[in-house]
């Protein structure tokens, strides 16, 4: 018996055999429809299968390649595919087709994912933090933002007067600087180690010595 994965436009979906499952990460980030990706994405495919893989193929748009899964655990296989020829700017689709020795087949399709290389990096949506407000003594706050392209990024957190409270840098290939959704955390401390007081602390996401469009957020610190 085989089931076919069907992907509706604008969302990832699959029809799966009872023992087959696929998930992917692009440059370490789980993609969602509409996410930006790097022009040369590194795609990690994790396959859950009750039996060994018989054949596997990955297609980026119309270019197909074989996937070589390696077992990492019982029923768990991992394959990595690197796109060496830079993808053009625009929407792209990634399709993965897997058949195991039990003759179970699975097709996974992720689209649309878009590549933006020519324009400056931007942030899709808002740069937000969670929890907000947050209590530095109890928790950290996660600052999430979706970069349109990889970039070396600085996260500068300020007090109301614009005095730098904390500065964190991220390389383009690290969490915080990758294309797509990034999440970093701040523990509510100054660079010197002391906690900040209650209040609102604006932060800026800076790339190429400019504030990334939509790269301004405000963190509320509220100790309970």
């Amino acid at each position, binding site marked *: 018996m085989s089931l076919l994965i069907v992907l509706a436009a604008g969302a990832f979906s699959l029809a799966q055999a009872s023992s087959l499952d696929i998930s992917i990460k692009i440059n370490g980030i789980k993609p969602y429809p509409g996410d930006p990706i790097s022009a040369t994405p590194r795609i990690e495919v994790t396959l859950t299968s009750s039996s060994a893989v018989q054949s596997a193929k990955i297609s980026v748009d119309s270019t197909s390649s074989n996937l070589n899964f390696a077992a990492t655990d019982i029923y768990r296989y991992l394959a990595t595919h690197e796109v060496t020829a830079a993808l053009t700017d625009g929407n792209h689709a990634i399709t993965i087709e897997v058949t195991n020795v039990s003759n179970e087949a699975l097709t996974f399709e992720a689209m649309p994912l878009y590549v933006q290389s020519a324009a400056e990096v931007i942030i899709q949506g808002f740069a937000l933090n*969670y929890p907000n407000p947050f209590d530095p003594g109890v928790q950290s706050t996660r600052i999430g933002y979706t970069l349109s392209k990889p970039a070396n990024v600085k996260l500068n957190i300020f007090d109301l007067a614009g005095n730098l409270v904390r500065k964190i840098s991220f390389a383009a290939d690290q969490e915080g600087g990758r294309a797509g959704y990034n999440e970093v955390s701040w523990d509510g401390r100054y660079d010197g180690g002391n906690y900040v007081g209650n209040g609102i602390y604006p932060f*800026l996401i800076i790339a190429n010595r400019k504030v990334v469009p939509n790269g301004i957020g405000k963190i509320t610190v509220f100790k309970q």
Partner: protein
Amino acid sequence: MIRRIVILMVLGSCFLSPALAADGISLDPSRTLFAARPVGMGGVSLGFSDDAGGVFSNPSAMIDLEFPQLVGASRKLLLDQTQYTLFCWALPTDYGTFGFGFTGMNIAGSLPTKLDPATNRIILDPSREATSYDNRVIAFSYSRKVREGLSAGGNLKFFNQALRGAAGSSANAMTVDLSTTYHPLPWLTAAANLQNILEGNLKWSNGASDKIGGFYKLGCRLNILGATEESLVSHRQKLYGGLDLDIPHSALSSTNYHLGVEYFPLEKIALRAGFNMDQNGTGLCLGVGLINGGFRFDYAFAERPGIPGDTPHYFSLSYLGERTVSVSHELKEKRPYIKFIQPRDRSVTDKSFVSITAEAKAERILDTKTVWAVTAISETFEVKETLAYEDLTPVYINGVITDQVGTIESSSPLGVGRNVFEILGYTTPEGQAGSGEVKVLRIVPFSDTPISHWAIDPIALSVTLGLVTGYPDNTFKPEKGITRAELVTLLVRSMPVKLAESVPSTGFRDVPTTHWAAKFIAYGSYRKLVTGYPDGTFKPNKVLTRAEGVTILSRYAQLVEKEGLPAPFPDLKADFWANKYITPAKEAGMLKYLEGKNFEPSKPFPRAEACEVLYRTPTVQRRVDRFWETGVVSAGTPETQPQPQPAEGTEVPTYEAR
């Protein structure tokens, strides 16, 4: 005392800091003043707190304020995320300088979030209200001079912070700043401001607590150029340099440096530049200040490292005060006048021409109002009468118009005798008139009496009035001792009497009726101006001594005899017989020519002196005045000539002549 307090507070602060380190550190909104003047100088402020901004930056530097001061600024900070407001006011008094300051910051729009259950990503939580935050401080400052070159100050600061929205809470705190300013050298100022030395503890209404962060600020200022002795180099332009160092306490980590200069190419224009080095990085700052009417407008351009795209423009407006003096005049009255500079009025000359110089002007009597004002603060005024002058025009000299104005210069021939010159001037052709007259007597001097003779005026006028005559050889013999006959003649001629040509007996056997002075001697004897000798003689040719001459003239002037007074001249004894005549003559001003000299009573009484003394008598002065004013030389209405003829055999009264 102040030093002890400072030391104790510093030590106390050192012990308190670690103990409170577990709390969060909250921003003091007055830590950095975003007024354009300090911003334009890279944040240097300690040595430049000579305006109201000193309430926060260094109260001790405000002791030399002359007027109340204001500083205000309002702008958006941090890419327009924060609204910043600054207002400072300082009031110098006899008891020190008091100040009030407010600094506030607020921000809104911190959005509550939640996790998307499908993606586990952060999304907005529209069910909760966005958070806003206010952070405000008000300060009350005071500063005063401790001794010459040293001042101390401080402020009491009250903080209020509030979170509203998804997080709702508020907190208050109080801290103290202490500051001092010291001038070790005239051109060097050293200052310190220990900010938040008490480390205010913010107690939030939900039970949390924070501390107010602060810095120990040290700074200096150099007066590099300037026109006063307080400058390193004397120059008409001014240049100041400053350096501030911010040493953090209360667990803040960054040590900041500020370096700046302020240059006055003109008195009311300041150019500024500086470097600001803080936790954000190092930034170049530029600024300009324009001063007018007691107000100063400041602008600064300062990019803040770490905040790319931040608006680099800063503005502030300050009231510095300016003392102004304005003077206005209101014409009260005009008084035209003619003032002759030459010739002197009633002067005697032997010249045939005279140069005339006169001022033809009008005194303008003005109500002059002087107003002393301090812009927008106070005004006092004083009104007093002042004089100004304007030229008269047109001007007439003896009825002939002249085109000269102001100082009139002319010349005119002089006839022998009295000459009158009149100048008439008008403020406008139909306006007020002023006039002046000068009279000049031209004489043909005697050959032995030049115009420079000390007694030329009395001699000339005595001759002109017919009181005395010269000799046929055109001499006057001014130094010749005057005889009794000559003096009597002189006196009688000065009197308003017309003597008959025929003379009866004089009563003196040595003065026959044919004597040239018989009629004068007869009348003088009759009027008891003179007396004869016991032997019935008059001794008309006897030369009078000075004492005798003055005695006769004193009697002639009908002066009251004064006895028992100190001797009127140093060489006269107190019991000198003629003192009673000499003293009143001196008091009447008849002996001015002997001022400071000895009297020398036995010296012959010369003709010149006789003219001088007679000239000073009131009777003759009246005739002289009338002559100058009218040109009349006669003695006036003559008396009926008396006939002092003693009867035959009648005893002739005898007097002791002196």
